């Protein structure tokens, strides 16, 4: 038995748990994250708002669209009253608004980030793996799209779609989702391309190629799992970013549109009538937005640390 194998055996005996998870970067990352209290709290907050978005009926029995003008401008009554968060100027229940507003905001964020990652990973892998003209076209496209800031592109395109008819939750977020995705994929492409370039010349990939694996198999089974780590760390931060952008677009009247409610729309309404006595109309949706964004940002920050091998 050589010295090295003995050494490995000894470490394995000393740290049985780490030995088992060895090699898996995800296992390591998960174990690092589990030990940090702020990560657990952030995860719980994010989870809470996800549950709110998925099952709004659990949290309120009111319908946000059903507004009784007779009840307008009731200040927050606390839990136990008919309107715990009060009502707005047209008598819509605030709690119902905040609860039902979570769904478009979060759904938009998940759709945009999901599609962007999918596009970014596909293009980045192709560019890094094949190089040549594929890479030239993709890199040039990335450069061109990067010059136009996301928000400016969204303002331009969404105001052109201003009068379009929409219906349902999905319909009302379709336009912002498409536009934000169109200008959101470049960052992932860049990261994945750089990682693929690094990974594809490693010995085990060369070995797979020598064994006769197809390009597709090498990309999906061997290169991608190693190249995708840093991208994952960008996801929570990107979700937080889209939630913030949605608020800006709704504020300008070109994002998710009434009668659908979203946090952005509530914030926009609340700030229009911001005066003594009705601050809660702005502060409740704003508070929800800040809490959610904060939770995702903390998760992203911790994930970036946990997945970055240089910091270990």
């Amino acid at each position, binding site marked *: 038995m050589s010295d090295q194998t003995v050494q490995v055996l000894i470490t394995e005996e000393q740290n049985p748990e780490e030995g088992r998870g060895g090699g898996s970067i995800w296992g390591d990352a998960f174990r690092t994250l589990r030990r940090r209290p702020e990560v657990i709290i952030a995860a719980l907050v994010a989870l809470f708002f996800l549950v709110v978005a998925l099952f709004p009926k659990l949290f309120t029995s009111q319908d946000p669209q059903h507004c009784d003008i007779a009840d307008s401008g009731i200040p927050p009554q606390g839990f136990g009253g008919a309107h715990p968060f009060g009502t707005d100027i047209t008598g819509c229940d605030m709690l119902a608004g905040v609860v039902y507003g979570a769904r478009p905001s979060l759904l938009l964020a998940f759709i945009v980030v999901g599609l962007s990652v999918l596009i970014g990973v596909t293009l980045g892998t192709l560019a890094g793996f094949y190089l040549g003209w594929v890479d030239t076209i993709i890199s*040039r496209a990335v*450069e*061109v*799209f*990067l*010059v*136009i*800031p*996301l*928000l*400016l*592109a969204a*303002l*331009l*395109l969404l*105001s*052109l*779609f*201003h*009068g*379009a008819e929409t219906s349902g939750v999905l319909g009302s977020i379709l336009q912002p989702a498409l536009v934000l995705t169109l200008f959101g994929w470049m960052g992932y492409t860049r990261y994945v391309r750089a990682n693929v370039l690094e990974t594809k010349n490693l010995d085990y990939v060369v070995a797979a190629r020598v064994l006769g694996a197809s390009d597709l198999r090498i990309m999906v089974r061997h290169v991608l799992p190693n190249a995708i780590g840093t991208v994952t760390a960008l996801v929570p*931060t990107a979700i*937080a*970013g889209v939630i*913030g952008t949605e*608020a*800006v677009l709704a*504020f*300008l*009247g*070109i994002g998710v549109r009434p009668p659908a409610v979203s946090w952005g729309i509530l*914030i926009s309404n609340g*700030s229009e009538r*911001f005066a003594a006595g009705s*601050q809660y109309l*702005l502060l409740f949706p*704003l508070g929800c*937005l*800040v809490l959610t*964004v*904060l939770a995702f*940002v*903390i998760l992203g*920050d911790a994930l970036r640390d946990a997945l970055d091998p240089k910091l270990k």
Partner: protein
Amino acid sequence: MGRYVLRRVLQGILTLFLVIFLLHLLTTFAIQLNGNPALAFFGDRVPTQAQLSAVSARFGLDDPCYNQLGNPCFGPFVNRLKDYLSGDFGTNLRGREITSIVATAAPNSFRLFLVVTATWLVVGMFLGSTAARRRGKVVDHGIRGFSVMIDALPVFVMLLVYRYVITVPVYTWAKKQFGSDSFIALLFKPSFDSDHPMITVIIPGILLGLAGSAAFIRLVRAAQLENYNSDHVRAARSKGLSERHVRVFHIVRNSSIPVATAVGIVFTEALAGAVITEGVMNIYGMGGLLWNAVRDSDVSLIIGIVTLLAIVTIVVMILVDLLYAALDPRIRYE
């Protein structure tokens, strides 16, 4: 260096051409899908066919290709390029030249950017260096927490809270205490004042700068940490140079190269942030114009400003690249 500059500038012109083409394609496609934006000119009134075609002609929307879905409209694109080359960026819905509108608005945007850049450098450099110097100590964790907090407060939220929650009581108090034309009162004025353009953009600028500084803090910290452990710093220390000298001349100076390039990347983000800042705070700058154009659905003004801002971004990116090449000779010979 000369060849590098030439190559970079030519590349920039190609990118600019592609960007304008992309914007053209996207707007064309949107118009084909959604109908004539010239309708916005009439507001709620229903125009006659003659009125509509007259207005369409004025905004260059009368080409039949705008009614054919999927047609890339090369004809109008060539015309538009010719107009851009002769400095004509079109007119807004009221018929005013976009270039003349932008000329009056640009100085205010420039003032805002001065404040933003100063905030980045001061906050980013100061906090980033402090964090790097005290790596792993309480101060480092505190600064890190601060940058996460900044990330978690979008500029938009920060400005809304500032404008609606903070300025009103502070402004009323300062007005009563010092008079409405005093420095403090103007500093906290809830909206822009064209008589005092510089003072009223200071706080919005600082807030926007703070929002961008989180990335800066992390970058400066990482760049300096790399230098703290490098050979040239160890050599400088072993020569017996004072720690202060090593820090200023060997660490801060060397780590400013990657920081300089980041300015270019953060710039595009700040541009978007400026639109929000100027919009929420009513600052009469290019972003504020765009914000109001979106509210009035003044499409030709939006297209003009977005194109102009894209041009500015490309110029800034080229400048940053050239600066990088001037600072770091390795880049020129790649």
